[in-house]
């Protein structure tokens, strides 16, 4: 994904890089309701979208903004919203609607301390499970967790591409640290970034069935106004798009929704590994915490402690292969996260007892430090000896 040609180095925040990524990826509609620590995404797009013929709308709340995003996407525009904590909770119902009606859209959630309004300016990673299960019913989810400013740009582009390809909501799970920190970054030139546009139907509007999937399980999608007439409903529907009220149709539809993402799991799910080959203890950490973990691995190795890191880039689908591999070679795994233990549940499931899994959890509104990780690694080393 990361293109080669680079522009000159600049200082950008994660939220600003998200704006740049969205513009390059072709986002032309944003609706939102500002909330710390995601506001800079709305601010940036409010400034930039009108200049290139796009639209920015500040809606009355998060529920309405998610609805507006779905409407704009049905009308043919690549659409996005950004929010945080309590706002993410409010968007859940319509995220489910977008999953059911297969409307491509991107939801940026810059995670902050919760529950409820919590600590608005403080970091957390407490929304990993909400990203997966925040809306009710079985549904597919793609959620990406950038750890740097450059990666925020790249994963924003990827989120837009995946939403268009899969016709499903894609979540960018930033955290306050990455969203607000500024760092030196070189962004690729727009013409070097690969884009994916939703596939449109080629057949006649007379015979068109809006929810008849192509071979890749994704139905081609016309825009309202293209001349194809179709109905989008959150009720269980058949290939005509109209509600049918039958369990058998629900079975076909929901299984297909799940399968269109699941069958691409190997392509979508990704993790970065760092010094895991000979690692006795492997840290699993994502987002900003992975930066601390990377520093800890370097520091620990200088002291002779064989630490390694697996950094999930996709929270969902979870990168099973990377965990599976270290579960076979490491003496123990430590899952470091700014919550009371969410990602650890996936790691335990995949490790399945082959390596003991320990948690390292902070919820005091501070980023986990490299020292925290080294201390925990020493404790765990004594424990598994």
């Amino acid at each position, binding site marked *: 994904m990361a293109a080669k040609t680079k522009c000159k*180095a*600049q*200082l950008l925040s994660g939220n600003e890089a998200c704006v740049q990524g969205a513009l390059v990826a072709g986002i032309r509609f944003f609706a939102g309701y500002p909330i*710390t620590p995601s506001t800079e995404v709305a601010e940036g797009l409010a400034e930039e979208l009108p200049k290139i013929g796009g639209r920015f709308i500040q809606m009355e709340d998060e529920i309405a903004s998610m609805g507006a995003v779905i409407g704009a996407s049905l009308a043919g525009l690549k659409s996005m919203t950004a929010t945080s904590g309590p706002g993410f909770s409010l968007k859940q119902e319509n995220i489910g609607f977008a999953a059911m009606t297969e409307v491509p859209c991107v939801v940026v959630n810059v995670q902050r301390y919760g529950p409820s309004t919590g600590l*608005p*300016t403080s970091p957390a990673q407490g929304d990993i499970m909400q990203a997966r299960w925040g809306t009710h019913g079985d549904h597919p989810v793609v959620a990406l967790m950038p750890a740097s400013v450059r990666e925020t740009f790249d994963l924003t582009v990827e989120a837009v591409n995946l939403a268009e390809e899969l016709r499903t909501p894609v979540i960018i799970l930033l955290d306050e*640290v990455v969203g*607000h*920190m*500024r*760092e*030196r970054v070189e962004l690729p030139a727009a013409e070097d970034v690969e884009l994916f546009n939703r596939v449109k139907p080629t057949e006649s509007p007379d015979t068109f069935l809006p929810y008849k999937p192509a071979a890749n399980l994704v139905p081609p999608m016309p825009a309202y106004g293209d001349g194809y007439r179709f109905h989008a409903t959150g009720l269980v529907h058949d290939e005509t798009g109209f509600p049918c009220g039958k369990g058998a149709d629900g079975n076909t539809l929901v299984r297909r929704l799940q399968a269109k993402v699941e069958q691409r799991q190997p392509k979508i799910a990704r993790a970065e590994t760092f010094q895991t080959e000979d690692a006795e203890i492997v840290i699993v950490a994502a987002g*900003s915490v992975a*930066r*601390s973990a*990377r*520093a800890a691995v*370097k520091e620990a190795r200088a002291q002779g402690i064989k630490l390694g890191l697996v950094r999930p880039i996709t929270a969902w689908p979870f990168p099973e292969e990377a965990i599976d591999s270290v579960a076979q070679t490491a003496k123990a795994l430590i899952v470091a996260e700014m919550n009371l233990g969410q990602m650890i549940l996936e790691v335990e499931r995949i490790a399945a007892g082959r390596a003991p899994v320990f948690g390292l959890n902070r919820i005091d509104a501070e*980023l986990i*430090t*490299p020292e925290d990780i080294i201390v925990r690694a020493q404790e765990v080393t004594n424990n598994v000896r």
Partner: protein
Amino acid sequence: MKKLELRLSGFGGQGLITAGIILAEAAILDGKNAVQSQSYGPEARGGASKAEVIISSEEIDYPKVGQADLCLAMSQQACDKYAGNTQPNGVLVLDSGYVKNPPEFSGKMYSVPITEIATSEVGRNIVANIVALGVIAGVTNVVTRESLETAVLDRVPPHTKDLNKKALAAGYESAKNLLQREGE
């Protein structure tokens, strides 16, 4: 220089986050890596404010500052809170107009009437942050003067360029005097 960690602290409205951004941009102009982060309360003005900058010729992983190599304190509250978390052989720069009770410190401590210089010598207290940058860069050479001046002028509104240029020069001048006195 492998890695330098700086903490700029004071109260909201003093332009410390802007100062942090400018410092990081100057470091990038120097060809270094830089990370800037901040913490602030929900208030727009008056609350405690802190910007952190890490400058390194290598990759920067952990983005927060631990024991700073340099700490700027532009309020007594900030000084009380952060000065202690500075390397024992580090540098402390205090705005003497606000910090009336400087701490015991084993490293180098410079008390400079930063806001007073901005008000009386430069003409507006709003550029105290830029005076502070001049002092910091003057005593540490953390970034080159050329890059810092470029970074300042890139960030400030066009009609304030002369004012900010003057503020930066006043900061450097004050640093020069401090170093001279130190040498005597």
